[in-house]
């Protein structure tokens, strides 16, 4: 009996002792570096930033950087570079753009645009904008679209575009646009923004808002199709805008707008989830999921943006596309013409970034953060 008692006391004691020393001190999460390509110290494009969105509420928006001059991929650089920022980069990184010497990261649920130094990745400041979505630049100003212009007003369902000065980082002007605006592009002195209306299905928005940059007012709306999302400009004064449809009976489609007349000039009967325009070519993919088969149908297409015709070429030619579960981001290196495609998998697992040669063969792939989706090339 005595032995049993002693044994039990000893056991309990050891347990408590072992346990009491098992919380480690917190440390900022370090970056993970891997070598992907041969270093090219004379590269024109020095590298690119890849923004990983992170699943909502997880606060796992993260930034990766591929340095072409060293050939090394740095995964998750923000925490190591800016460990003093409370709770890090934030929740749901939705867009990224580089303008001048700075990187602008739109972090949607954290209601901010993070401004970093392009060379070092160190944070400069943040601009608070509620429910911000996409960013674009022109003439020393930064333009950010936001789902709601005012939050908390039942009579204010519309979104807005904010204009921010790049030296003071203050919001200088604001214009009300359609409901839940998404991506923007600037052609000439006009800013075009795609309105989705995604908060009120099935009453989606159908228009692209056209804003006169000089007066910063909404000049007109171009009627396109429901639930507009991506919007990219080519160098010929045309805008490519995608409609997501209603996910059920109305299919997704691609439209081309002529900015000289501000009207829709062409309509493509296939859906496009995302695209990247480089020079005369648009690189596109479409992702659709079928409940019936439980499989996704992904298609990759190329388009000639000079005459708006589909090119009979593929940018993935070695069968790697079968490994990509959920394509989420696409970009093309403006100098080498390599194509970058990301796979977001199931949104709660680290993604993969693939790099394809101009002839469509896989050159390398690397593990990224959660939901890799947005690129910005740094010169």
């Amino acid at each position, binding site marked *: 009996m005595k032995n049993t008692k002693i044994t039990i006391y000893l056991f*309990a004691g050891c347990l408590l002792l072992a346990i009491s020393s098992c919380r480690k001190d917190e440390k900022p999460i370090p970056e993970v570096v891997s070598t992907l390509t041969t270093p090219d110290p004379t590269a024109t494009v020095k590298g690119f930033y890849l923004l990983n969105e992170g699943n909502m509420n*997880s*606060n796992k928006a993260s930034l990766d950087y591929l340095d072409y001059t060293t050939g090394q991929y740095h995964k998750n650089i923000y925490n190591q570079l800016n460990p003093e920022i409370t*709770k890090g980069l934030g929740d749901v990184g939705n867009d990224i753009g580089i303008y001048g010497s700075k990187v602008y990261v739109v972090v949607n649920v954290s209601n901010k645009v993070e401004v970093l130094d392009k060379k070092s990745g160190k944070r400069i400041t943040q601009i608070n904008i509620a*429910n911000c979505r996409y960013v674009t630049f022109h003439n020393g100003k930064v333009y950010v679209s936001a789902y709601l212009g005012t939050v908390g*007003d039942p009579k*204010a369902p519309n979104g807005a575009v904010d204009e921010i000065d790049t030296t003071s980082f203050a919001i200088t002007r604001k214009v009300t646009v359609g409901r839940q605006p998404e991506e923007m592009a600037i052609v000439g002195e006009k800013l075009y923004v795609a309105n989705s209306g995604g908060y009120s299905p099935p*009453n989606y928005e159908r228009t692209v808002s056209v804003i006169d940059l000089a007066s910063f007012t909404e000049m007109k709306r171009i009627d396109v199709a429901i639930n507009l999302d991506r919007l990219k400009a080519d160098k010929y004064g045309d805008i490519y805008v995608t409609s997501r449809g209603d996910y059920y009976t109305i299919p997704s489609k691609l439209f081309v707008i002529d900015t000289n007349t501000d009207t829709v000039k062409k309509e493509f009967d296939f859906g496009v989830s995302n695209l990247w325009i480089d020079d005369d070519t648009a690189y596109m993919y479409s992702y659709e999921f079928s409940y019936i088969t439980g499989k996704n149908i992904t298609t990759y297409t190329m388009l000639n943006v000079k005459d708006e015709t589909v090119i009979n070429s593929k940018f993935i030619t070695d069968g790697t596309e079968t490994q990509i579960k959920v394509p989420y981001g696409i970009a093309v290196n403006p100098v080498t013409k390599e194509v970058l495609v990301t796979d*977001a998998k199931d949104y709660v697992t680290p993604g993969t970034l693939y790099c394809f040669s101009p002839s469509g063969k896989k050159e390398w792939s690397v593990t990224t953060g959660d939901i890799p989706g947005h690129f910005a090339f740094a010169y």
Partner: protein
Amino acid sequence: MQILCAGNLYAQSATNKATTDTVKKVALKEVAIHAERLSSRNTSASPVQILKGAELEKLNSLSVADAIRFFSGVQIKDYGGVGGLKTINVRSLGTNHTAVFYDGIEFGNSQNGQVDLGKFSLDNIGEIDLYSAQKSTIFQPAKGFSAGSSIYLTAKMPSFDDGRSNGKVSFKAGSFGLLNPSIFWQYKLSDKIYSTFSSEIIHADGRYKFRYTNGVYDTTAVRHNGDIDAQRIEAGLNGKLKDTSTFAVKGYLYNSNRGLPAAIVNNKFDSKQREWDRNEFVQASYNKAFNPRYSLQLNAKYSDDYTHYFDPEITNLRGLLDDKYYEHEFYFSVANRYHINHWWDVAASADYQRNTLDALQNDTAQYRFVRPVRNTFLAVLATSVHFDRFNAQASLLGTFVNDTVDTLVAAGKKKEYTPALLLSWQPIENSPVRIRGFYKSIFRLPTFNDLYFTFIGNALLRPEFAKQYDLGFTYSKSHPDNVLAFYAVQIDGYYNQVRDKIVAIPGQNLDRWTMYNLGKVHIKGLEVNAQATWLLPASIVLNTGISYTYQNAKDVTDVTDFNYNQQIPYTPVNSGSLLVNAERGRFSVNYSFIYTGERYNEKANIPENYMQPWYTHDAGVTYTANWDKHKIKLTGEVSNLANQRYDVILNFPMPGRNYRFTISSTF
């Protein structure tokens, strides 16, 4: 059955000096009762954990969720604060595989399949039992066989020591601005019938400090929008009729208004979402033994559930986002048992349930909102054999479900047959060693949200299946003359397989999720529970309980997955708890400790998803006094003594050190 504490008897004989013999007699009685209470832990063919009576009262717990944390094999998902959602997951099967029974009848939620255990206050709960597999009796409603594990909550039973009336009024106050008055009253209407009434109000502002650090930044802030105002009323009638049949009827109303604090993310600590809930039900049970061979049990329930969710951060064409849902449930059960002979029983049970979901106003899913009607029919055939040292139960559950909808696609008909086998064996005569084990195949149906919620629901979902295998060993010993007067131990090893796990994957378009049967999980686990009672010098009675859980729960969905064969989210490999209670005279001192090992908050076991182990120490003191004919109790509790800052769920911080005081009086 009531646990007599040494303190009680002291108080009643306060004027007499207790002799050593009396103390010892009291202690022995305590040990005997303890032993008797614990015996079902050891003899039950399915593993069961029990918190009951005084032991339950002494825990630093406000709600059932707080108390269940001390059980082995349980992971709790706690979103923080008094009003925060708290659900449990037993043996890594998943939250939807655990059924909650309140006085024998299931308390469910057909919309999301989750029961918020934070809603059940311990004020009027007398006993909490957690069964793995199923309750080891064949004479129960078919519902009792239909889940992977079951929690039985039993309301306090009366003890009319003298007089017709038995009541308690109590008041709790403490951190988070908690104010919690409650009343509990039982009245003997006649020799055979008594009535019960209980009511309580909870008010808390829900504010507490929380802290986040990464070693470089170190922020402390206050959790806002975590307030709660809730009211509960219950009334019941229990009785025995002339033909020795028994009946129980209960009415229940719960109403709450709470803030929903959001995840703490960079640059956004506050939220303004709110939720209102109202739940009312009426349930009745009837038991009759017609003759020594045949017995009948009837159960019925009708319940309404109203949920109202408000999110001022989303504005749509109607205004600010506002959802209102109504659920209705009707349930009826017939259970029969027949003694074929003294060692062989058979039972047959049939349950019918009808669930509907409606939304009068709905912004989140108004478009293409489906109003389902689910008719469920459960039938069980079971048999049990019991000899001196061996008993076994086998059951076959047939589940027949039909969903119909007003629009779009219905899930339609489903039909499943699932068996269970439970065994318990005492290999050596006169030795308290027992070996037990079970096999059970069971599933959980997709919820209404899984099937029909706009953009996310998938009407083609199949049930999610779980196979469980368990082998265990129990032992207990009483040595009333020793200091270690009583101890018992239960050890169980188990292997669970979950397939067709219902998970959310990227859906019709890249901005949405969709539910799909995709996951496969293999779980290997070990649970060790031990209880002991010590009779220390100076008339101190010490009760201890320790539990340890080992879980190896691996995702084995697809060998090409990044996280193939890695631990599934929020499942620690090691976890455990320790409960110590010492009593002497009018004083009772409590200490409890919970440990949850390191785990990952997402599928990939990588540093970005790593969560530190957390452990909390709780302590409390209770003083009991008599005044006139009233028993007065004063309790002071401190939780999380070491003020550890931790998250159970990523970005939902838990409170640091917090306090609670209670004063109660019987009348």
